[in-house]
């Protein structure tokens, strides 16, 4: 299993210092944080495509985030299954 592909959904949000090293079980802490910083809070601006952990997250019009890190997690899991 490659770096940044380890999905273990049992972690708490952690402080910045403890998630600087990515990969392994810290990855989900990072995803938890990403989920919140991207999907929770005030929406001002949209229309962007970015890439995280090799997965494109697509944001489209009207300032509403249509695709989230939750979807990214799904995509990662699907990719893992395909690899096996």
């Amino acid at each position, binding site marked *: 299993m490659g770096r940044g592909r380890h999905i273990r959904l049992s972690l708490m949000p952690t402080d*910045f210092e403890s998630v600087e090293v990515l990969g392994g079980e810290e990855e989900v802490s990072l995803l938890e944080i990403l989920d919140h*910083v991207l999907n*929770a809070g005030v*929406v001002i601006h949209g229309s962007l495509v970015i*890439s995280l952990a090799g997965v494109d997250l697509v944001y489209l019009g009207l300032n509403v985030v249509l695709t989230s890190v939750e979807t990214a997690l799904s995509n990662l899991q699907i990719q893992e299954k395909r690899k096996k």
Partner: protein
Amino acid sequence: MSRVLAYCGFRHGAQITLPAVGVGAVPVQLMSSGELGLLWSEVEWPIAPDKMQRSALEFHQVVRHVFNQTAVIPFRLLSVFEDQQALAAFAAENQARFLRDLERLKSFVQMECVVYPAPATERQDFSSGKAYLEKKAVAMRSSEGFAQAVRDAVAHLSHEVRVREGKNGTRIFVLVERGHESDFRQAVSVLPLPQHLSRRISGPWPAAEFLSDEVKAPQIASQKIAGAK
């Protein structure tokens, strides 16, 4: 090209300490509009994909720094303004709404419990659509039952509860008085979990799920208001 990246809003007081640097290690600035404080930085835009993870963590650290001291209204990471004047205009227009939500949420933090299907240990029988749908229905009923059990278990701690179904499970958001986070964890972690489900407890987070719609999506709200006229 540079843009003004907004981190969070909070009720500004002399006792609140502010972080020095934010996304891209650039200085974090304070904009005050009455009692409302907004933290922002001038950043290179767009953020390069290879810097997104680090930027997200730096953004989180700024919000967390203030949230550890008081209630905040977080902006989303990709929320940018053209320039400082645009942010000032936004602050002036939304100051009263932000302060209302900050007042309402000032003593609370958001705790979360996500319930999701446990990784399958045996081969799944998806030989027919019916079998698949039956399993899905069972999982959904289990999630709903657990969500209700969480509501009951934290009733003495929760000010408000919201449940949202997602692709990867059921998310239960609970507004808990600051200082009672460990009570929440304890109450939820001892609940018996239905077979084939796993749980993830997290928090405290800023109470973003409990923001009013006009604060959460101010442009959309103002468009709606304009459309109604």
